[in-house]
Protein backbone atom coordinates (compact mmCIF):
# COMPACT_ATOMS: atom_id res chain seq x y z
CA UNK A 1 0.00 0.00 0.00
CA UNK A 2 2.81 2.37 0.99
CA UNK A 3 4.77 1.68 -2.20
CA UNK A 4 1.63 2.03 -4.31
CA UNK A 5 0.82 5.44 -2.79
CA UNK A 6 4.42 6.53 -3.16
CA UNK A 7 4.34 5.75 -6.87
CA UNK A 8 0.78 7.05 -7.46
CA UNK A 9 0.69 10.36 -5.60
CA UNK A 10 -2.74 11.17 -7.04
CA UNK A 11 -4.26 8.51 -4.78
CA UNK A 12 -2.54 10.11 -1.79
CA UNK A 13 -4.23 13.40 -2.70
CA UNK A 14 -7.51 11.47 -3.03
CA UNK A 15 -7.07 10.05 0.50
CA UNK A 16 -6.37 13.58 1.78
CA UNK A 17 -9.57 14.85 0.10
CA UNK A 18 -11.54 11.98 1.64
CA UNK A 19 -10.08 12.62 5.12
CA UNK A 20 -11.12 16.29 4.79
CA UNK A 21 -14.62 15.31 3.71
CA UNK A 22 -14.90 12.68 6.50
CA UNK A 23 -13.88 15.24 9.12
CA UNK A 24 -16.44 17.77 7.93
CA UNK A 25 -19.13 15.09 7.67
CA UNK A 26 -18.52 13.80 11.22
CA UNK A 27 -18.72 17.37 12.55
CA UNK A 28 -21.97 18.09 10.68
CA UNK A 29 -23.35 14.77 11.92
CA UNK A 30 -22.56 15.71 15.54
CA UNK A 31 -24.19 19.14 15.13
CA UNK A 32 -27.27 17.46 13.67
CA UNK A 33 -27.42 15.02 16.62
CA UNK A 34 -27.21 17.89 19.12
CA UNK A 35 -29.96 19.72 17.30
CA UNK A 36 -32.19 16.63 17.38
CA UNK A 37 -31.63 16.31 21.14
CA UNK A 38 -32.67 19.95 21.63
CA UNK A 39 -35.72 19.53 19.42
CA UNK A 40 -36.62 16.35 21.33
CA UNK A 41 -36.33 18.19 24.65
CA UNK A 42 -38.59 21.01 23.35
CA UNK A 43 -41.10 18.44 22.08
CA UNK A 44 -41.21 16.59 25.45
CA UNK A 45 -42.22 19.77 27.30
Amino acid at each position, binding site marked *: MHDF*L*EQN*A*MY*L*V*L*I*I*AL*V*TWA*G*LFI*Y*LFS*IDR*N*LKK*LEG*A*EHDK
Partner: protein
Amino acid sequence: MNNIYKYSVFVLISLVLVGTFVVPIPTIPGLYDKARIIYLHVPLSWIAVVSFLLSMINSVQYLRKRDLIYDVRSHSAAEVGFLFTILATVTGALWAKFNWGTYWNWDPRQTSIFILLLIYGAYFALRSAIDNYEQKAKLASVYAIIAFVTVPFFIFIMPRIVESLHPADTIIDSQGKISMNPVMFTIFMFSLFSFTLLFFWILNIKIRLEKLKLQRIQKINN
Protein backbone atom coordinates in the same frame (compact mmCIF):
# COMPACT_ATOMS: atom_id res chain seq x y z
CA MET B 1 -28.45 32.11 4.74
CA ASN B 2 -30.38 31.40 1.56
CA ASN B 3 -30.40 28.32 -0.63
CA ILE B 4 -28.51 30.01 -3.49
CA TYR B 5 -25.56 30.37 -1.12
CA LYS B 6 -25.71 26.67 -0.20
CA TYR B 7 -26.04 25.49 -3.81
CA SER B 8 -23.15 27.79 -4.76
CA VAL B 9 -20.96 26.22 -2.06
CA PHE B 10 -21.78 22.76 -3.40
CA VAL B 11 -20.91 23.78 -6.99
CA LEU B 12 -17.74 25.64 -5.95
CA ILE B 13 -16.36 22.82 -3.79
CA SER B 14 -17.17 20.34 -6.58
CA LEU B 15 -15.21 22.53 -9.01
CA VAL B 16 -12.30 22.71 -6.55
CA LEU B 17 -12.23 18.90 -6.44
CA VAL B 18 -12.33 18.72 -10.23
CA GLY B 19 -9.49 21.28 -10.40
CA THR B 20 -7.51 19.32 -7.81
CA PHE B 21 -7.63 16.02 -9.66
CA VAL B 22 -8.13 16.84 -13.32
CA VAL B 23 -6.27 20.03 -14.23
CA PRO B 24 -2.64 19.23 -15.17
CA ILE B 25 0.09 20.85 -13.09
CA PRO B 26 3.69 21.60 -14.12
CA THR B 27 6.39 19.15 -13.04
CA ILE B 28 7.69 20.20 -9.62
CA PRO B 29 10.88 18.19 -8.85
CA GLY B 30 10.50 16.16 -5.66
CA LEU B 31 6.78 16.81 -5.38
CA TYR B 32 5.09 15.95 -8.71
CA ASP B 33 1.37 15.19 -8.11
CA LYS B 34 1.87 15.49 -4.35
CA ALA B 35 1.95 19.28 -4.93
CA ARG B 36 -1.82 19.12 -5.48
CA ILE B 37 -2.31 18.92 -1.71
CA ILE B 38 -1.89 22.71 -1.70
CA TYR B 39 -5.49 23.06 -3.00
CA LEU B 40 -6.84 21.31 0.12
CA HIS B 41 -4.34 21.57 2.97
CA VAL B 42 -3.56 25.31 2.79
CA PRO B 43 -7.26 26.41 2.70
CA LEU B 44 -7.85 24.33 5.86
CA SER B 45 -5.03 26.20 7.64
CA TRP B 46 -6.29 29.53 6.25
CA ILE B 47 -9.77 28.90 7.67
CA ALA B 48 -8.28 28.00 11.05
CA VAL B 49 -6.68 31.47 11.16
CA VAL B 50 -9.90 33.21 9.96
CA SER B 51 -12.02 31.40 12.55
CA PHE B 52 -9.65 32.16 15.44
CA LEU B 53 -9.64 35.80 14.31
CA LEU B 54 -13.47 35.82 14.33
CA SER B 55 -13.43 34.22 17.76
CA MET B 56 -11.16 36.99 19.03
CA ILE B 57 -13.24 39.80 17.46
CA ASN B 58 -16.44 38.44 19.00
CA SER B 59 -14.71 38.05 22.36
CA VAL B 60 -13.76 41.73 22.26
CA GLN B 61 -17.35 42.56 21.37
CA TYR B 62 -18.63 40.47 24.28
CA LEU B 63 -16.36 42.25 26.76
CA ARG B 64 -17.52 45.62 25.39
CA LYS B 65 -21.26 44.95 25.19
CA ARG B 66 -21.81 42.00 27.57
CA ASP B 67 -24.27 40.44 25.15
CA LEU B 68 -24.10 36.64 25.27
CA ILE B 69 -24.71 36.35 21.53
CA TYR B 70 -21.10 37.46 21.00
CA ASP B 71 -19.89 34.72 23.29
CA VAL B 72 -21.96 32.22 21.30
CA ARG B 73 -20.33 33.45 18.08
CA SER B 74 -16.86 33.46 19.59
CA HIS B 75 -17.19 29.96 21.01
CA SER B 76 -18.69 28.62 17.75
CA ALA B 77 -15.90 30.15 15.64
CA ALA B 78 -13.26 28.68 17.94
CA GLU B 79 -14.86 25.23 17.73
CA VAL B 80 -15.12 25.24 13.92
CA GLY B 81 -11.57 26.63 13.76
CA PHE B 82 -10.39 23.79 15.98
CA LEU B 83 -11.95 21.27 13.60
CA PHE B 84 -10.18 22.86 10.61
CA THR B 85 -6.89 22.94 12.54
CA ILE B 86 -7.20 19.20 13.25
CA LEU B 87 -7.96 18.54 9.57
CA ALA B 88 -4.95 20.63 8.48
CA THR B 89 -2.76 18.68 10.93
CA VAL B 90 -3.98 15.26 9.81
CA THR B 91 -3.81 16.01 6.07
CA GLY B 92 -0.33 17.52 6.54
CA ALA B 93 0.86 14.46 8.48
CA LEU B 94 -0.40 12.10 5.76
CA TRP B 95 1.44 14.11 3.13
CA ALA B 96 4.59 14.22 5.30
CA LYS B 97 4.68 10.43 5.49
CA PHE B 98 5.05 10.18 1.73
CA ASN B 99 7.26 13.22 1.25
CA TRP B 100 9.46 13.31 4.33
CA GLY B 101 9.27 9.65 5.40
CA THR B 102 7.41 10.01 8.73
CA TYR B 103 4.03 11.35 9.81
CA TRP B 104 5.53 13.71 12.35
CA ASN B 105 8.89 15.50 12.10
CA TRP B 106 8.51 18.35 14.62
CA ASP B 107 8.97 20.69 11.68
CA PRO B 108 8.37 24.35 12.78
CA ARG B 109 4.92 24.40 11.14
CA GLN B 110 3.96 21.06 12.68
CA THR B 111 5.20 22.20 16.08
CA SER B 112 3.34 25.51 15.73
CA ILE B 113 0.04 23.89 14.82
CA PHE B 114 0.45 21.38 17.66
CA ILE B 115 0.93 24.24 20.16
CA LEU B 116 -2.13 26.01 18.69
CA LEU B 117 -4.18 22.85 19.21
CA LEU B 118 -3.05 22.77 22.84
CA ILE B 119 -3.88 26.47 23.32
CA TYR B 120 -7.39 26.13 21.88
CA GLY B 121 -7.86 22.75 23.58
CA ALA B 122 -7.28 24.59 26.86
CA TYR B 123 -9.93 27.15 25.79
CA PHE B 124 -12.57 24.40 25.61
CA ALA B 125 -11.35 22.88 28.88
CA LEU B 126 -11.72 26.30 30.51
CA ARG B 127 -15.26 26.70 29.18
CA SER B 128 -16.37 23.28 30.35
CA ALA B 129 -14.92 23.88 33.83
CA ILE B 130 -17.21 26.84 34.61
CA ASP B 131 -20.95 26.39 35.19
CA ASN B 132 -22.06 30.00 35.47
CA TYR B 133 -22.73 31.19 31.92
CA GLU B 134 -21.80 34.85 32.45
CA GLN B 135 -18.56 33.96 34.21
CA LYS B 136 -17.76 31.36 31.56
CA ALA B 137 -18.30 33.92 28.80
CA LYS B 138 -16.18 36.56 30.52
CA LEU B 139 -13.19 34.30 31.24
CA ALA B 140 -13.38 32.55 27.86
CA SER B 141 -13.45 35.92 26.07
CA VAL B 142 -10.31 37.09 27.82
CA TYR B 143 -8.64 33.75 27.07
CA ALA B 144 -9.69 33.83 23.38
CA ILE B 145 -8.15 37.30 22.96
CA ILE B 146 -4.87 36.23 24.56
CA ALA B 147 -4.90 32.95 22.57
CA PHE B 148 -5.26 34.81 19.28
CA VAL B 149 -2.22 36.96 20.03
CA THR B 150 -0.14 33.78 19.63
CA VAL B 151 -1.71 32.82 16.25
CA PRO B 152 0.25 35.18 13.93
CA PHE B 153 3.46 34.18 15.71
CA PHE B 154 2.87 30.44 15.33
CA ILE B 155 1.39 30.54 11.82
CA PHE B 156 3.37 33.31 10.09
CA ILE B 157 6.50 34.19 12.06
CA MET B 158 7.96 31.04 13.66
CA PRO B 159 7.92 28.92 10.46
CA ARG B 160 9.87 31.71 8.73
CA ILE B 161 12.57 32.26 11.32
CA VAL B 162 13.35 28.57 11.89
CA GLU B 163 14.48 26.28 9.07
CA SER B 164 11.58 24.21 7.84
CA LEU B 165 11.05 21.06 5.78
CA HIS B 166 7.96 22.72 4.30
CA PRO B 167 8.43 23.77 0.66
CA ALA B 168 9.45 27.46 0.68
CA ASP B 169 8.31 30.18 -1.75
CA THR B 170 5.58 27.93 -3.19
CA ILE B 171 3.04 30.74 -3.53
CA ILE B 172 4.91 34.02 -3.08
CA ASP B 173 8.69 34.34 -3.35
CA SER B 174 10.98 36.27 -1.02
CA GLN B 175 10.55 39.43 -3.17
CA GLY B 176 6.78 39.34 -2.76
CA LYS B 177 6.04 38.18 -6.31
CA ILE B 178 3.72 35.28 -7.12
CA SER B 179 5.98 32.31 -7.81
CA MET B 180 3.25 29.74 -8.37
CA ASN B 181 2.26 28.58 -11.84
CA PRO B 182 -0.69 30.82 -12.99
CA VAL B 183 -3.10 27.88 -13.48
CA MET B 184 -2.23 26.43 -10.07
CA PHE B 185 -2.52 29.89 -8.50
CA THR B 186 -6.00 30.37 -9.99
CA ILE B 187 -7.23 27.01 -8.66
CA PHE B 188 -5.57 27.70 -5.32
CA MET B 189 -7.28 31.09 -4.90
CA PHE B 190 -10.58 29.59 -6.06
CA SER B 191 -10.16 26.86 -3.44
CA LEU B 192 -9.42 29.42 -0.70
CA PHE B 193 -12.58 31.32 -1.65
CA SER B 194 -14.78 28.20 -1.84
CA PHE B 195 -13.58 26.73 1.45
CA THR B 196 -14.12 30.12 3.11
CA LEU B 197 -17.76 30.12 1.94
CA LEU B 198 -18.14 26.53 3.19
CA PHE B 199 -16.70 27.58 6.54
CA PHE B 200 -19.23 30.40 6.92
CA TRP B 201 -22.07 27.98 6.20
CA ILE B 202 -20.84 25.50 8.84
CA LEU B 203 -20.27 28.36 11.29
CA ASN B 204 -23.80 29.64 10.64
CA ILE B 205 -25.30 26.22 11.51
CA LYS B 206 -23.16 25.97 14.65
CA ILE B 207 -24.14 29.48 15.82
CA ARG B 208 -27.85 28.72 15.30
CA LEU B 209 -27.49 25.55 17.38
CA GLU B 210 -25.64 27.34 20.19
CA LYS B 211 -28.25 30.15 20.16
CA LEU B 212 -30.99 27.55 20.70
CA LYS B 213 -29.01 26.04 23.59
CA LEU B 214 -28.56 29.49 25.12
CA GLN B 215 -32.27 30.32 24.79
CA ARG B 216 -33.10 27.02 26.50
CA ILE B 217 -30.72 27.74 29.39
CA GLN B 218 -32.16 31.26 29.76
CA LYS B 219 -35.73 29.85 29.75
CA ILE B 220 -34.85 27.35 32.50
CA ASN B 221 -33.16 30.05 34.59
CA ASN B 222 -36.15 32.38 34.27
